[in-house]
Protein backbone atom coordinates (compact mmCIF):
# COMPACT_ATOMS: atom_id res chain seq x y z
CA UNK A 1 0.00 0.00 0.00
CA UNK A 2 1.69 3.17 -1.14
CA UNK A 3 -0.27 5.79 0.77
CA UNK A 4 -2.17 4.40 3.70
CA UNK A 5 -4.32 6.95 5.51
CA UNK A 6 -4.15 4.99 8.74
CA UNK A 7 -1.08 3.00 9.70
CA UNK A 8 -0.97 1.20 13.01
CA UNK A 9 2.19 -0.62 14.01
CA UNK A 10 2.68 -2.89 16.97
CA UNK A 11 0.21 -1.09 19.23
CA UNK A 12 0.12 -2.69 22.65
CA UNK A 13 -1.86 -1.51 25.65
CA UNK A 14 -2.07 -3.25 28.98
CA UNK A 15 -4.48 -2.16 31.69
CA UNK A 16 -3.25 -2.87 35.17
CA UNK A 17 -0.65 -5.61 35.16
CA UNK A 18 -2.39 -8.33 33.28
CA UNK A 19 -5.24 -7.25 31.08
CA UNK A 20 -3.85 -6.97 27.58
CA UNK A 21 -6.39 -4.81 25.81
CA UNK A 22 -4.29 -4.62 22.67
CA UNK A 23 -1.52 -7.02 21.81
CA UNK A 24 0.83 -5.95 19.03
CA UNK A 25 -1.86 -4.77 16.63
CA UNK A 26 -0.65 -3.84 13.16
CA UNK A 27 -2.88 -2.74 10.32
CA UNK A 28 -3.10 -0.18 7.57
CA UNK A 29 -5.56 0.91 4.94
CA UNK A 30 -5.97 3.29 2.05
CA UNK A 31 -8.08 6.46 1.94
CA UNK A 32 -11.67 6.52 0.81
CA UNK A 33 -12.83 3.19 2.23
CA UNK A 34 -14.81 1.90 5.17
CA UNK A 35 -12.57 -0.17 7.37
CA UNK A 36 -14.44 -2.41 9.76
CA UNK A 37 -13.04 -3.53 13.08
CA UNK A 38 -15.03 -6.59 14.02
CA UNK A 39 -14.96 -8.35 17.34
CA UNK A 40 -16.97 -9.29 20.40
CA UNK A 41 -17.38 -7.06 23.46
CA UNK A 42 -14.08 -6.57 25.23
CA UNK A 43 -12.01 -7.54 22.19
CA UNK A 44 -10.10 -4.25 22.22
CA UNK A 45 -11.92 -2.40 19.45
CA UNK A 46 -12.76 0.63 21.53
CA UNK A 47 -9.26 0.71 23.00
CA UNK A 48 -7.81 0.90 19.50
CA UNK A 49 -10.21 3.72 18.58
CA UNK A 50 -9.21 5.56 21.74
CA UNK A 51 -5.54 5.26 20.83
CA UNK A 52 -6.15 6.50 17.29
CA UNK A 53 -8.25 9.44 18.46
CA UNK A 54 -5.59 10.57 20.98
CA UNK A 55 -7.67 9.66 24.02
CA UNK A 56 -5.30 6.98 25.22
CA UNK A 57 -1.54 6.48 25.02
CA UNK A 58 -0.48 2.95 24.17
CA UNK A 59 2.40 1.22 25.96
CA UNK A 60 4.15 0.47 22.69
CA UNK A 61 3.79 0.93 18.98
CA UNK A 62 3.07 3.78 16.64
CA UNK A 63 0.06 5.13 14.83
CA UNK A 64 -0.16 7.53 11.92
CA UNK A 65 -3.50 9.02 10.88
CA UNK A 66 -3.78 11.23 7.79
CA UNK A 67 -0.03 11.67 7.76
CA UNK A 68 0.19 12.76 11.40
CA UNK A 69 1.83 10.74 14.15
CA UNK A 70 -0.95 10.66 16.75
CA UNK A 71 1.44 9.96 19.62
CA UNK A 72 4.03 12.62 18.78
CA UNK A 73 1.61 15.30 17.64
CA UNK A 74 -1.89 14.63 18.99
CA UNK A 75 -2.89 18.26 18.65
CA UNK A 76 -2.47 18.26 14.88
CA UNK A 77 -3.99 14.80 14.66
CA UNK A 78 -7.14 16.10 16.34
CA UNK A 79 -7.66 18.56 13.47
CA UNK A 80 -7.77 15.64 11.03
CA UNK A 81 -10.18 13.33 12.79
CA UNK A 82 -13.78 13.08 13.83
CA UNK A 83 -15.03 10.77 16.57
CA UNK A 84 -18.48 9.46 17.31
CA UNK A 85 -18.24 7.28 20.38
CA UNK A 86 -20.40 4.47 21.65
CA UNK A 87 -22.84 6.83 23.27
CA UNK A 88 -24.32 9.83 21.58
CA UNK A 89 -22.15 12.57 23.07
CA UNK A 90 -24.72 15.28 22.54
CA UNK A 91 -26.34 17.65 25.00
CA UNK A 92 -29.97 16.92 25.73
CA UNK A 93 -30.78 20.49 26.65
CA UNK A 94 -29.23 22.13 23.63
CA UNK A 95 -30.85 22.07 20.21
CA UNK A 96 -29.39 19.94 17.45
CA UNK A 97 -28.03 23.04 15.79
CA UNK A 98 -26.45 24.37 18.99
CA UNK A 99 -24.73 21.04 19.54
CA UNK A 100 -23.21 20.98 16.07
CA UNK A 101 -22.26 24.66 16.12
CA UNK A 102 -20.51 24.20 19.44
CA UNK A 103 -18.35 21.40 18.07
CA UNK A 104 -17.63 23.53 15.00
CA UNK A 105 -16.41 26.35 17.23
CA UNK A 106 -14.21 23.92 19.13
CA UNK A 107 -12.71 22.76 15.83
CA UNK A 108 -11.62 26.39 15.46
CA UNK A 109 -14.23 27.56 12.96
CA UNK A 110 -15.43 31.17 13.16
CA UNK A 111 -18.98 31.83 14.34
CA UNK A 112 -20.20 32.48 10.80
CA UNK A 113 -18.41 29.43 9.46
CA UNK A 114 -19.66 27.10 12.16
CA UNK A 115 -23.23 28.35 11.62
CA UNK A 116 -22.98 27.73 7.89
CA UNK A 117 -21.29 24.39 8.35
CA UNK A 118 -23.87 23.26 10.93
CA UNK A 119 -26.71 23.98 8.51
CA UNK A 120 -24.87 22.04 5.83
CA UNK A 121 -24.15 19.02 7.99
CA UNK A 122 -27.64 18.90 9.51
CA UNK A 123 -29.12 18.99 6.03
CA UNK A 124 -26.89 16.17 4.95
CA UNK A 125 -27.74 14.08 7.96
CA UNK A 126 -31.47 14.66 7.44
CA UNK A 127 -32.05 16.58 10.66
CA UNK A 128 -32.83 20.02 9.23
CA UNK A 129 -36.44 19.91 10.39
CA UNK A 130 -35.50 18.95 13.94
CA UNK A 131 -32.44 21.20 14.10
CA UNK A 132 -33.97 23.80 16.39
CA UNK A 133 -35.55 21.39 18.82
CA UNK A 134 -33.86 20.35 22.03
CA UNK A 135 -32.12 17.03 21.68
CA UNK A 136 -34.09 15.51 24.57
CA UNK A 137 -37.04 15.34 22.15
CA UNK A 138 -35.02 13.25 19.65
CA UNK A 139 -35.32 9.49 19.24
CA UNK A 140 -32.26 7.33 19.91
CA UNK A 141 -31.57 7.03 16.20
CA UNK A 142 -31.79 10.78 15.70
CA UNK A 143 -29.37 11.33 18.56
CA UNK A 144 -26.86 9.00 16.95
CA UNK A 145 -27.24 10.80 13.66
CA UNK A 146 -26.74 14.12 15.38
CA UNK A 147 -23.64 12.75 17.05
CA UNK A 148 -22.41 11.76 13.61
CA UNK A 149 -23.21 15.25 12.32
CA UNK A 150 -21.15 16.76 15.12
CA UNK A 151 -18.20 14.56 14.23
CA UNK A 152 -18.43 15.74 10.62
CA UNK A 153 -18.54 19.45 11.20
CA UNK A 154 -14.75 19.89 11.17
CA UNK A 155 -14.43 18.10 7.79
CA UNK A 156 -12.33 15.27 9.20
CA UNK A 157 -10.16 13.24 6.87
CA UNK A 158 -10.75 10.14 8.92
CA UNK A 159 -13.94 9.49 10.80
CA UNK A 160 -13.88 7.07 13.73
CA UNK A 161 -17.22 5.50 14.59
CA UNK A 162 -17.32 3.29 17.64
CA UNK A 163 -20.26 0.93 17.28
CA UNK A 164 -22.35 3.47 15.38
CA UNK A 165 -25.54 1.40 15.45
CA UNK A 166 -25.41 -0.28 18.84
CA UNK A 167 -28.65 0.24 20.71
CA UNK A 168 -30.75 1.78 17.96
CA UNK A 169 -33.77 0.33 16.22
CA UNK A 170 -33.42 -1.57 12.93
CA UNK A 171 -34.81 1.20 10.75
CA UNK A 172 -32.52 3.86 12.17
CA UNK A 173 -29.71 1.39 11.74
CA UNK A 174 -30.28 1.28 8.01
CA UNK A 175 -30.43 5.10 7.94
CA UNK A 176 -27.06 5.25 9.67
CA UNK A 177 -25.62 2.70 7.25
CA UNK A 178 -26.78 4.76 4.31
CA UNK A 179 -25.32 7.87 5.84
CA UNK A 180 -21.95 6.23 6.34
CA UNK A 181 -21.89 4.92 2.77
CA UNK A 182 -22.79 8.39 1.46
CA UNK A 183 -19.98 9.92 3.47
CA UNK A 184 -17.45 7.58 2.00
CA UNK A 185 -18.78 8.28 -1.48
CA UNK A 186 -18.06 11.92 -0.65
CA UNK A 187 -14.41 11.10 0.01
CA UNK A 188 -14.26 10.59 3.78
CA UNK A 189 -12.42 7.60 5.16
CA UNK A 190 -14.25 5.73 7.90
CA UNK A 191 -12.98 3.36 10.53
CA UNK A 192 -15.85 1.76 12.36
CA UNK A 193 -16.09 -0.89 15.01
CA UNK A 194 -18.92 -3.32 15.22
CA UNK A 195 -19.88 -6.53 16.89
CA UNK A 196 -22.48 -7.15 14.23
CA UNK A 197 -21.24 -9.39 11.50
CA UNK A 198 -23.90 -8.31 9.03
CA UNK A 199 -22.91 -4.70 9.61
CA UNK A 200 -19.28 -5.36 8.77
CA UNK A 201 -20.42 -7.45 5.82
CA UNK A 202 -22.74 -4.72 4.53
CA UNK A 203 -20.55 -1.72 5.07
CA UNK A 204 -16.88 -2.49 5.27
CA UNK A 205 -14.57 -2.66 2.28
CA UNK A 206 -11.98 -4.28 4.48
CA UNK A 207 -12.45 -6.03 7.77
CA UNK A 208 -10.07 -6.72 10.61
CA UNK A 209 -11.21 -9.36 13.06
CA UNK A 210 -10.00 -8.64 16.55
CA UNK A 211 -10.29 -10.93 19.52
CA UNK A 212 -8.78 -10.64 22.98
CA UNK A 213 -6.63 -7.72 21.87
CA UNK A 214 -5.09 -9.52 18.93
CA UNK A 215 -5.73 -8.97 15.25
CA UNK A 216 -6.53 -12.44 14.05
CA UNK A 217 -7.48 -11.81 10.47
CA UNK A 218 -7.61 -9.04 7.96
CA UNK A 219 -9.04 -8.77 4.48
CA UNK A 220 -12.20 -8.15 2.51
CA UNK A 221 -15.45 -9.74 3.49
CA UNK A 222 -15.12 -12.10 0.50
CA UNK A 223 -11.56 -13.01 1.46
CA UNK A 224 -12.84 -14.14 4.79
CA UNK A 225 -15.68 -16.14 3.41
CA UNK A 226 -13.29 -17.78 0.94
CA UNK A 227 -11.34 -19.08 3.90
CA UNK A 228 -14.19 -21.41 4.70
CA UNK A 229 -14.00 -22.83 1.20
CA UNK A 230 -17.49 -22.17 -0.04
CA UNK A 231 -20.69 -23.22 1.67
CA UNK A 232 -21.22 -24.61 5.13
CA UNK A 233 -23.65 -27.05 6.62
CA UNK A 234 -25.26 -26.23 9.93
CA UNK A 235 -27.15 -28.84 11.82
CA UNK A 236 -28.40 -29.66 15.23
CA UNK A 237 -29.07 -33.11 16.60
CA UNK A 238 -30.40 -34.47 19.87
CA UNK A 239 -27.92 -34.22 22.74
CA UNK A 240 -27.37 -38.00 22.95
CA UNK A 241 -26.42 -38.24 19.26
CA UNK A 242 -23.97 -35.33 19.35
CA UNK A 243 -20.69 -37.24 19.59
CA UNK A 244 -21.73 -39.88 17.11
CA UNK A 245 -22.74 -37.15 14.64
CA UNK A 246 -19.44 -35.32 15.04
CA UNK A 247 -17.57 -38.53 14.35
CA UNK A 248 -19.60 -39.19 11.20
CA UNK A 249 -19.09 -35.62 9.97
CA UNK A 250 -15.37 -35.78 10.60
CA UNK A 251 -15.17 -38.83 8.35
CA UNK A 252 -17.01 -37.04 5.54
CA UNK A 253 -15.45 -33.58 5.51
CA UNK A 254 -12.02 -34.48 6.82
CA UNK A 255 -11.83 -31.69 9.39
CA UNK A 256 -12.96 -31.06 12.92
CA UNK A 257 -16.59 -29.86 13.07
CA UNK A 258 -17.18 -26.71 15.12
CA UNK A 259 -19.74 -26.76 17.88
CA UNK A 260 -21.46 -23.62 19.10
CA UNK A 261 -20.83 -23.14 22.81
CA UNK A 262 -24.46 -22.50 23.71
CA UNK A 263 -26.80 -23.72 21.00
CA UNK A 264 -24.66 -26.84 20.37
CA UNK A 265 -25.22 -26.23 16.69
CA UNK A 266 -22.63 -28.00 14.55
CA UNK A 267 -20.97 -26.29 11.59
CA UNK A 268 -18.88 -28.03 8.92
CA UNK A 269 -17.53 -26.77 5.64
CA UNK A 270 -19.31 -28.20 2.59
CA UNK A 271 -16.63 -28.14 -0.06
CA UNK A 272 -18.87 -29.73 -2.66
CA UNK A 273 -22.06 -28.00 -1.66
CA UNK A 274 -25.25 -30.08 -2.12
CA UNK A 275 -23.16 -33.18 -2.73
CA UNK A 276 -21.58 -32.89 0.70
CA UNK A 277 -25.01 -32.29 2.20
CA UNK A 278 -26.36 -35.45 0.61
CA UNK A 279 -23.42 -37.42 1.97
CA UNK A 280 -24.05 -36.02 5.44
CA UNK A 281 -27.75 -36.84 5.34
CA UNK A 282 -27.00 -40.41 4.20
CA UNK A 283 -24.45 -40.91 6.95
CA UNK A 284 -26.88 -39.64 9.58
CA UNK A 285 -29.64 -41.83 8.20
CA UNK A 286 -27.36 -44.87 8.29
CA UNK A 287 -26.62 -44.14 11.95
CA UNK A 288 -30.35 -43.62 12.64
CA UNK A 289 -29.77 -40.05 13.73
CA UNK A 290 -32.62 -37.70 12.95
CA UNK A 291 -31.39 -34.11 12.87
CA UNK A 292 -33.58 -31.48 14.50
CA UNK A 293 -32.48 -29.02 11.89
CA UNK A 294 -30.12 -29.08 8.94
CA UNK A 295 -29.26 -26.42 6.39
CA UNK A 296 -26.75 -25.65 3.68
CA UNK A 297 -25.82 -22.03 3.25
CA UNK A 298 -23.15 -19.64 2.00
CA UNK A 299 -20.79 -18.88 4.86
CA UNK A 300 -21.67 -15.84 6.92
CA UNK A 301 -19.16 -13.77 8.79
CA UNK A 302 -20.48 -15.53 11.84
CA UNK A 303 -19.02 -18.75 10.49
CA UNK A 304 -15.80 -16.94 9.71
CA UNK A 305 -15.63 -15.65 13.24
CA UNK A 306 -16.26 -19.07 14.67
CA UNK A 307 -13.56 -20.55 12.50
CA UNK A 308 -11.04 -17.85 13.33
CA UNK A 309 -11.53 -17.61 17.05
CA UNK A 310 -12.96 -20.98 17.96
CA UNK A 311 -15.87 -19.25 19.64
CA UNK A 312 -18.94 -17.56 18.25
CA UNK A 313 -18.99 -13.78 18.14
CA UNK A 314 -21.95 -13.38 20.47
CA UNK A 315 -20.48 -15.59 23.08
CA UNK A 316 -16.88 -14.61 23.70
CA UNK A 317 -14.79 -16.98 25.74
CA UNK A 318 -17.42 -19.71 25.93
CA UNK A 319 -15.42 -22.16 23.93
CA UNK A 320 -11.68 -21.75 23.92
CA UNK A 321 -10.87 -24.50 21.49
CA UNK A 322 -8.24 -23.59 18.93
CA UNK A 323 -9.22 -23.16 15.33
CA UNK A 324 -7.83 -25.90 13.16
CA UNK A 325 -5.23 -24.42 10.94
CA UNK A 326 -7.51 -21.94 9.30
CA UNK A 327 -5.98 -18.95 10.98
CA UNK A 328 -4.01 -16.80 8.65
CA UNK A 329 -3.86 -13.58 6.85
CA UNK A 330 -5.00 -12.86 3.42
CA UNK A 331 -4.78 -9.61 1.70
CA UNK A 332 -6.22 -8.49 -1.50
CA UNK A 333 -5.60 -5.14 -3.04
CA UNK A 334 -8.76 -3.26 -3.64
CA UNK A 335 -8.80 -2.19 -7.26
Amino acid at each position, binding site marked *: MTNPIVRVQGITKTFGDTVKALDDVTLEFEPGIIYGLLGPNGAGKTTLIRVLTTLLRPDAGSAVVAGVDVLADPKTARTKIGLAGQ*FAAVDDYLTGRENVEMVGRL*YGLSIAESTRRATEVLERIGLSDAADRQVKTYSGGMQRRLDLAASLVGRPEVLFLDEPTTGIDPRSRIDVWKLITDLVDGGTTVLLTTQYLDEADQLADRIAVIDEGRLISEGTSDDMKDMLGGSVIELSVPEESQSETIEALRAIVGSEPLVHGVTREITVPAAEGPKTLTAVVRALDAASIIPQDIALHKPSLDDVFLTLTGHPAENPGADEQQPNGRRGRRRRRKS
Partner: protein
Amino acid sequence: MTAVTAPSKPGRVAASLPQTIRDIIVITKRNLLRNLRLPQLIILSTIQPIMFLFLFTYVFGGAIGGTLPDAAAGEYINWLIPGLLVQTAAFGAGQTALGLTEDLSKGVIDRFRSLPMARSAVLAGRTVSDVIRNGFVIGLMMAVGILIGFRYQTSLAGLFAGMALAMVFSFAFSWIMATIGLLVKNPEAVQAAIFLPVFPLVFASSVFVPTQTMPSWLRAFADNQPVTVTVDALRGLILGEGALLPGNTVIGQVALSLFYSGMILAIFVPLSVRLYRRTVS
Protein backbone atom coordinates in the same frame (compact mmCIF):
# COMPACT_ATOMS: atom_id res chain seq x y z
CA MET B 1 -6.48 30.37 32.59
CA THR B 2 -3.97 29.35 29.99
CA ALA B 3 -3.42 25.69 29.27
CA VAL B 4 -0.87 24.21 31.59
CA THR B 5 2.05 22.95 29.58
CA ALA B 6 4.80 20.44 29.90
CA PRO B 7 6.93 21.30 26.86
CA SER B 8 9.42 18.54 27.55
CA LYS B 9 6.88 15.87 26.72
CA PRO B 10 6.02 15.40 23.08
CA GLY B 11 2.59 16.48 21.99
CA ARG B 12 1.80 18.55 25.05
CA VAL B 13 1.53 21.78 23.15
CA ALA B 14 -0.41 24.54 24.83
CA ALA B 15 -3.21 26.19 22.92
CA SER B 16 -2.75 29.88 22.20
CA LEU B 17 -4.32 32.29 24.68
CA PRO B 18 -7.01 33.63 22.30
CA GLN B 19 -8.00 30.09 21.38
CA THR B 20 -8.11 29.08 25.03
CA ILE B 21 -10.33 32.03 25.92
CA ARG B 22 -12.59 31.36 22.96
CA ASP B 23 -12.95 27.70 23.89
CA ILE B 24 -13.69 28.61 27.52
CA ILE B 25 -16.44 30.96 26.35
CA VAL B 26 -17.95 28.25 24.12
CA ILE B 27 -18.02 25.72 26.96
CA THR B 28 -19.28 28.27 29.49
CA LYS B 29 -22.12 29.21 27.18
CA ARG B 30 -23.01 25.56 26.72
CA ASN B 31 -23.15 24.94 30.46
CA LEU B 32 -25.17 28.08 31.16
CA LEU B 33 -27.68 27.22 28.43
CA ARG B 34 -28.06 23.85 30.09
CA ASN B 35 -28.77 25.56 33.40
CA LEU B 36 -31.31 27.89 31.86
CA ARG B 37 -33.15 25.07 30.14
CA LEU B 38 -33.20 22.90 33.21
CA PRO B 39 -35.02 25.28 35.56
CA GLN B 40 -35.49 22.53 38.14
CA LEU B 41 -31.75 22.68 38.74
CA ILE B 42 -31.76 26.43 39.36
CA ILE B 43 -34.87 26.26 41.51
CA LEU B 44 -33.66 23.35 43.63
CA SER B 45 -30.17 24.70 44.09
CA THR B 46 -31.70 28.02 45.15
CA ILE B 47 -34.30 26.62 47.51
CA GLN B 48 -31.72 24.84 49.61
CA PRO B 49 -29.67 27.88 50.67
CA ILE B 50 -32.83 29.93 51.18
CA MET B 51 -34.21 27.16 53.36
CA PHE B 52 -30.99 27.30 55.37
CA LEU B 53 -31.43 31.03 55.67
CA PHE B 54 -34.91 30.69 57.13
CA LEU B 55 -34.08 27.74 59.38
CA PHE B 56 -31.00 29.28 60.91
CA THR B 57 -32.50 32.73 61.25
CA TYR B 58 -35.64 31.62 63.04
CA VAL B 59 -34.54 28.39 64.76
CA PHE B 60 -31.11 29.40 66.07
CA GLY B 61 -31.37 33.16 65.87
CA GLY B 62 -32.92 33.67 69.27
CA ALA B 63 -30.51 31.38 71.10
CA ILE B 64 -27.38 32.68 69.45
CA GLY B 65 -28.27 36.37 69.19
CA GLY B 66 -27.01 37.29 72.64
CA THR B 67 -23.47 36.02 72.12
CA LEU B 68 -22.79 37.98 68.95
CA PRO B 69 -20.39 40.89 68.63
CA ASP B 70 -21.94 44.36 68.64
CA ALA B 71 -21.19 44.74 64.95
CA ALA B 72 -24.12 42.44 64.23
CA ALA B 73 -26.39 45.12 65.70
CA GLY B 74 -28.13 42.52 67.81
CA GLU B 75 -29.59 40.69 64.80
CA TYR B 76 -28.52 37.11 64.11
CA ILE B 77 -29.42 37.48 60.45
CA ASN B 78 -26.78 40.21 60.09
CA TRP B 79 -24.23 37.76 61.42
CA LEU B 80 -25.61 34.84 59.45
CA ILE B 81 -25.84 36.26 55.92
CA PRO B 82 -22.08 36.65 55.29
CA GLY B 83 -21.61 33.09 56.58
CA LEU B 84 -24.37 31.69 54.43
CA LEU B 85 -22.99 33.42 51.33
CA VAL B 86 -19.73 31.54 51.82
CA GLN B 87 -21.58 28.31 52.62
CA THR B 88 -23.54 28.73 49.40
CA ALA B 89 -20.29 29.36 47.55
CA ALA B 90 -18.83 26.10 48.89
CA PHE B 91 -21.97 23.97 48.42
CA GLY B 92 -22.65 25.45 45.00
CA ALA B 93 -19.15 24.56 43.87
CA GLY B 94 -20.18 20.92 44.28
CA GLN B 95 -22.10 21.34 41.04
CA THR B 96 -18.76 21.40 39.27
CA ALA B 97 -18.04 17.83 40.32
CA LEU B 98 -21.56 16.70 39.43
CA GLY B 99 -21.52 18.37 36.03
CA LEU B 100 -18.14 16.91 35.14
CA THR B 101 -19.02 13.35 36.11
CA GLU B 102 -22.23 13.63 34.15
CA ASP B 103 -20.30 14.69 31.05
CA LEU B 104 -17.80 11.91 31.65
CA SER B 105 -20.48 9.26 31.90
CA LYS B 106 -22.19 10.42 28.73
CA GLY B 107 -19.08 10.39 26.56
CA VAL B 108 -19.16 14.17 26.11
CA ILE B 109 -15.68 14.47 27.59
CA ASP B 110 -14.36 11.92 25.08
CA ARG B 111 -15.69 14.05 22.28
CA PHE B 112 -14.09 17.17 23.77
CA ARG B 113 -10.78 15.41 24.26
CA SER B 114 -10.73 14.32 20.63
CA LEU B 115 -11.23 17.90 19.42
CA PRO B 116 -8.41 20.32 18.64
CA MET B 117 -9.48 22.57 21.52
CA ALA B 118 -7.64 23.95 24.54
CA ARG B 119 -7.20 21.17 27.09
CA SER B 120 -8.02 23.43 30.02
CA ALA B 121 -11.21 24.85 28.47
CA VAL B 122 -13.59 22.07 29.50
CA LEU B 123 -12.66 22.51 33.16
CA ALA B 124 -12.37 26.29 33.04
CA GLY B 125 -15.67 26.58 31.17
CA ARG B 126 -17.26 24.41 33.83
CA THR B 127 -15.88 26.38 36.77
CA VAL B 128 -16.64 29.74 35.15
CA SER B 129 -20.26 28.79 34.40
CA ASP B 130 -20.63 27.43 37.94
CA VAL B 131 -19.33 30.64 39.47
CA ILE B 132 -21.80 32.64 37.37
CA ARG B 133 -24.61 30.41 38.56
CA ASN B 134 -23.43 30.69 42.16
CA GLY B 135 -23.26 34.46 41.76
CA PHE B 136 -26.93 34.38 40.83
CA VAL B 137 -27.81 32.29 43.89
CA ILE B 138 -25.72 34.56 46.14
CA GLY B 139 -27.49 37.63 44.79
CA LEU B 140 -30.88 36.04 45.29
CA MET B 141 -30.01 35.06 48.84
CA MET B 142 -28.94 38.57 49.59
CA ALA B 143 -32.28 39.86 48.26
CA VAL B 144 -34.26 37.41 50.39
CA GLY B 145 -32.05 38.25 53.36
CA ILE B 146 -32.80 41.96 52.99
CA LEU B 147 -36.52 41.18 52.79
CA ILE B 148 -36.45 39.36 56.12
CA GLY B 149 -34.40 41.95 57.94
CA PHE B 150 -30.74 41.81 56.98
CA ARG B 151 -29.03 45.24 56.99
CA TYR B 152 -25.39 45.88 56.04
CA GLN B 153 -23.58 47.98 58.61
CA THR B 154 -20.84 49.49 56.46
CA SER B 155 -21.51 50.62 52.90
CA LEU B 156 -23.02 49.36 49.67
CA ALA B 157 -19.49 49.10 48.30
CA GLY B 158 -18.54 46.89 51.24
CA LEU B 159 -21.56 44.71 50.56
CA PHE B 160 -20.64 44.21 46.90
CA ALA B 161 -16.99 43.67 47.76
CA GLY B 162 -18.12 40.93 50.15
CA MET B 163 -20.25 39.24 47.53
CA ALA B 164 -17.39 39.43 45.03
CA LEU B 165 -15.05 37.82 47.56
CA ALA B 166 -17.54 34.98 48.07
CA MET B 167 -17.53 34.42 44.32
CA VAL B 168 -13.74 34.32 44.17
CA PHE B 169 -13.85 31.69 46.89
CA SER B 170 -16.57 29.79 45.03
CA PHE B 171 -14.43 29.75 41.90
CA ALA B 172 -11.42 28.40 43.79
CA PHE B 173 -13.59 25.78 45.51
CA SER B 174 -14.97 24.70 42.13
CA TRP B 175 -11.48 23.57 41.14
CA ILE B 176 -11.27 21.35 44.23
CA MET B 177 -14.60 19.92 43.14
CA ALA B 178 -13.37 19.48 39.58
CA THR B 179 -10.51 17.39 40.94
CA ILE B 180 -12.90 15.32 43.04
CA GLY B 181 -15.19 14.82 40.05
CA LEU B 182 -12.35 13.61 37.86
CA LEU B 183 -11.10 11.27 40.57
CA VAL B 184 -14.48 9.76 41.44
CA LYS B 185 -15.89 9.81 37.88
CA ASN B 186 -19.19 8.25 38.87
CA PRO B 187 -22.14 10.66 39.09
CA GLU B 188 -23.81 8.78 41.98
CA ALA B 189 -20.68 8.32 44.06
CA VAL B 190 -19.62 11.91 43.58
CA GLN B 191 -22.75 13.15 45.38
CA ALA B 192 -21.34 11.72 48.58
CA ALA B 193 -17.74 12.63 47.81
CA ILE B 194 -18.37 16.35 47.46
CA PHE B 195 -19.60 16.62 51.03
CA LEU B 196 -16.39 15.20 52.46
CA PRO B 197 -14.47 18.46 52.19
CA VAL B 198 -17.54 20.71 52.40
CA PHE B 199 -19.10 19.64 55.69
CA PRO B 200 -16.08 19.90 58.03
CA LEU B 201 -15.03 23.17 56.45
CA VAL B 202 -18.49 24.72 56.65
CA PHE B 203 -19.50 23.49 60.10
CA ALA B 204 -16.16 23.78 61.89
CA SER B 205 -16.10 27.45 61.00
CA SER B 206 -17.62 30.78 61.95
CA VAL B 207 -20.39 30.38 59.37
CA PHE B 208 -23.19 29.81 61.91
CA VAL B 209 -21.73 30.66 65.29
CA PRO B 210 -18.69 32.52 66.62
CA THR B 211 -15.80 30.12 67.16
CA GLN B 212 -15.15 31.28 70.76
CA THR B 213 -17.26 28.52 72.33
CA MET B 214 -15.58 25.67 70.44
CA PRO B 215 -13.01 23.47 72.26
CA SER B 216 -9.53 24.90 71.81
CA TRP B 217 -8.24 22.10 69.53
CA LEU B 218 -11.17 22.61 67.16
CA ARG B 219 -10.88 26.34 67.41
CA ALA B 220 -7.27 26.20 66.28
CA PHE B 221 -8.53 24.63 63.07
CA ALA B 222 -11.76 26.61 62.78
CA ASP B 223 -10.16 30.03 63.16
CA ASN B 224 -7.56 29.43 60.49
CA GLN B 225 -9.23 27.44 57.78
CA PRO B 226 -10.23 29.10 54.50
CA VAL B 227 -14.00 29.10 55.09
CA THR B 228 -13.72 30.99 58.41
CA VAL B 229 -11.14 33.37 57.00
CA THR B 230 -13.42 34.13 54.05
CA VAL B 231 -16.53 34.45 56.21
CA ASP B 232 -14.67 36.81 58.56
CA ALA B 233 -13.44 38.83 55.60
CA LEU B 234 -17.06 39.14 54.41
CA ARG B 235 -18.23 40.15 57.88
CA GLY B 236 -15.48 42.75 58.05
CA LEU B 237 -16.54 44.16 54.70
CA ILE B 238 -20.28 44.05 55.41
CA LEU B 239 -20.55 44.57 59.18
CA GLY B 240 -17.30 46.36 59.97
CA GLU B 241 -14.12 45.54 61.89
CA GLY B 242 -16.06 44.96 65.11
CA ALA B 243 -17.30 41.64 63.71
CA LEU B 244 -13.76 40.24 63.63
CA LEU B 245 -11.73 38.47 66.29
CA PRO B 246 -9.65 40.87 68.34
CA GLY B 247 -6.45 41.79 66.51
CA ASN B 248 -7.73 40.93 63.02
CA THR B 249 -8.20 43.67 60.44
CA VAL B 250 -10.62 43.71 57.52
CA ILE B 251 -7.86 44.20 54.99
CA GLY B 252 -5.84 41.43 56.63
CA GLN B 253 -8.73 38.95 56.45
CA VAL B 254 -9.52 39.89 52.84
CA ALA B 255 -5.87 39.44 51.88
CA LEU B 256 -5.73 36.11 53.70
CA SER B 257 -8.92 34.90 52.00
CA LEU B 258 -7.55 35.87 48.59
CA PHE B 259 -4.30 34.13 49.49
CA TYR B 260 -6.19 30.93 50.35
CA SER B 261 -8.18 31.08 47.12
CA GLY B 262 -4.96 31.66 45.21
CA MET B 263 -3.32 28.68 46.91
CA ILE B 264 -6.28 26.45 46.15
CA LEU B 265 -6.13 27.50 42.50
CA ALA B 266 -2.36 27.02 42.34
CA ILE B 267 -2.75 23.43 43.55
CA PHE B 268 -6.01 22.29 42.03
CA VAL B 269 -5.92 23.88 38.57
CA PRO B 270 -2.81 22.01 37.43
CA LEU B 271 -3.91 18.88 39.30
CA SER B 272 -7.33 18.74 37.67
CA VAL B 273 -6.01 19.59 34.20
CA ARG B 274 -3.56 16.73 34.60
CA LEU B 275 -6.32 14.36 35.67
CA TYR B 276 -8.49 15.56 32.82
CA ARG B 277 -5.80 14.69 30.31
CA ARG B 278 -5.51 11.19 31.66
CA THR B 279 -9.10 10.46 32.43
CA VAL B 280 -10.42 7.34 30.84
CA SER B 281 -14.15 7.35 31.16
